[in-house]
């Protein structure tokens, strides 16, 4: 039987063009274990060299911008969760800050610091995933198992604060849905204490690991000039040597009160991106520590501040606590009014950006005074820098192309919106 199969003559007619062709066409994706998401790259390869690559995007396009035109402001928040789902709290808070900018709300310092804590935690979670996946793609699976335990700890903090883990829908316009519980503060402290040990171990395993360095150094480089022209932001731009960080350039949520460094690389290759992300995690940890100290100081000075978790001026935008909604008529009516978007926002045009896990996450909102955005556009860093990918991998090896893709941290949800 097996003899028959091996000796069967093939009568597939190939076109003259493909018979003449000296290169191979390779479909990397849409579903491929090495792409970590729905990405398709149609590559022309000559042996191991990538000659040309063409991306196909839009596999998980969900028309968020169109949907948002028919959703009251609070109902847009769950849509933002699904952009960069590795760091959804940053997206949620960026969106809430956009509305706050439109409404002209000023938040109490304690609330802003709490936000900073949550945003920096999600930045750590985002970078942990990216860097450990770079390691997996170079063949080192162990560090990945180490760091995921800590991503889990971060998710437990989110769960304690807002009730969900991955797509968080965290916070409200003007602050948080409820005050941080005792358990969440405890979990935060335990994270801050235990994280450095793991992080050092992770760095020991990889940073000066000969195999890892040989695989990463020089793979997928991009110059600062090209990166800027391609609209790179975030760690990928900083790895190329440009110290642009929205947290410093246009501080929001009181980032100007914190003392932190912006790590930069030099040549923008995989190793630089990896190192920049690692250093950023240390900086994030230091920001979290500073924020805890600042909050403790505020609470020691003004004990009544302990219960402040949203801006008093945002009262008409703040959803009442759930137990009140179930037991008090006014609270139920108010909850319904807010969720159904019975509260109009002023007309205006806002662009607000935050430093997301992958770069400048912008919200361009046009409000015509209605209950929904007239137009909402997300400036999604992944979508913008993914177009630079061919330039980074062409001429390199196929295996370098794969680690370049994972070190860019392209998230399919953010790419396709």
């Amino acid at each position, binding site marked *: 039987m097996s003899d028959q199969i091996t000796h069967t003559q093939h009568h597939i007619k190939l076109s003259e063009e493909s018979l003449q062709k000296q290169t191979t066409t390779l479909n990397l994706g849409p579903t491929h274990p090495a792409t970590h998401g729905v990405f398709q790259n149609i590559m022309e390869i000559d042996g191991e060299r990538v000659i040309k690559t063409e991306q196909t995007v839009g596999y998980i396009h969900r*028309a968020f911008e169109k949907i948002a035109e028919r959703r009251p402001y609070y109902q847009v928040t769950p849509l933002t969760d699904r952009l960069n789902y590795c760091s959804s709290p940053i997206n949620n808070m960026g969106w809430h800050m956009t509305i706050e900018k439109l409404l002209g709300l000023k938040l109490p310092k304690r609330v802003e610091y709490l936000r900073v804590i949550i945003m920096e935690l999600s930045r750590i979670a985002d970078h942990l995933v990216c860097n450990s996946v770079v390691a997996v793609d170079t063949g080192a699976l162990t560090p990945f198992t180490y760091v995921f335990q800590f991503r889990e700890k971060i998710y437990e903090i989110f769960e304690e604060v807002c009730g969900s883990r991955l797509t968080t829908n965290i916070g409200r316009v003007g602050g948080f849905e409820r005050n941080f519980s005792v358990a969440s503060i405890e979990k935060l402290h335990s994270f801050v204490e235990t994280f450095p040990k793991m992080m050092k171990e992770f760095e020991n395993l990889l940073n000066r690991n000969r195999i890892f360095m040989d695989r990463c150094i020089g793979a997928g480089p991009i110059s600062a000039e090209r990166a*800027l022209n391609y*609209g790179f932001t975030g760690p990928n731009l900083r790895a190329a040597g440009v110290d642009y960080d929205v947290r410093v*350039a*246009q501080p929001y949520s009181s980032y100007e009160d914190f003392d932190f460094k912006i790590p930069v690389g030099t040549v923008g290759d995989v190793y630089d991106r990896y190192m920049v992300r690692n250093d950023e995690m240390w900086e994030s940890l230091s920001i979290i520590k500073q924020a805890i100290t600042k909050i403790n100081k505020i609470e020691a000075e003004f004990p009544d501040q302990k219960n402040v978790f949203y801006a008093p001026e945002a009262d008409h935008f703040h959803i009442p606590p759930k137990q009140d909604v179930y037991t008090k008529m006014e609270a139920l009516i108010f909850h319904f009014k807010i969720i159904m978007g019975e509260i109009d926002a002023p007309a205006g045009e806002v662009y607000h950006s935050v430093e997301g896990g992958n770069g400048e996450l*912008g919200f*361009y909102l046009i409000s015509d005074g209605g209950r929904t955005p007239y137009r909402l556009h997300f400036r999604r860093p992944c979508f*913008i820098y993914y*177009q630079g990918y061919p330039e980074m991998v062409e001429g390199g090896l196929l295996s370098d192309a794969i680690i370049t893709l994972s070190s860019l941290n392209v998230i399919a949800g953010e790419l396709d919106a």
Partner: protein
Amino acid sequence: MTNEIIKNRLTEKFGEHLSGWEEPFGLLTVNVAASMNLKVLQFLFDDEQLRFRFMTDLTGVHFPERKGEELCVVYHLHNMVDGIRLRLKAYVPVEKPDIFTATKLYSTANWMERETYDFFGINFIGHPNLVRILNVDDMDYFPMRKEYEMEDPTRRDKDDEMFGRG
């Protein structure tokens, strides 16, 4: 670098092609004639004083009630050296939505223009590969235009008045 300097510099050079100066939330906004968009962008890019060499965002908006200028292309530019942003808007009619591409100036405009074409049907003249990007290739309409409704049109509870309009 302040909004005032940018405004004066641009008025000096392109006075008659610019209109509708605004500063919503501190972000300088100006309408530019659609035929002049590339010239203005080039000037903003090259000028040693202005240095708007980073394109943050490019998108479209549909205003069906603005007759003769229904579609709007919005550019967000950034001068990273001085940390200042600028918003340019160019209006084009829906019957002939032609505007020049900025791809040669900013590589990042490539996909953003494709996206804007995909959703609003704006024709970027000179674009190297103006095809749909997020939607399926054989789609024959531009879904972000306002005439395509999100909801089932038979539902009264999703009327415009329920959303504070009309």
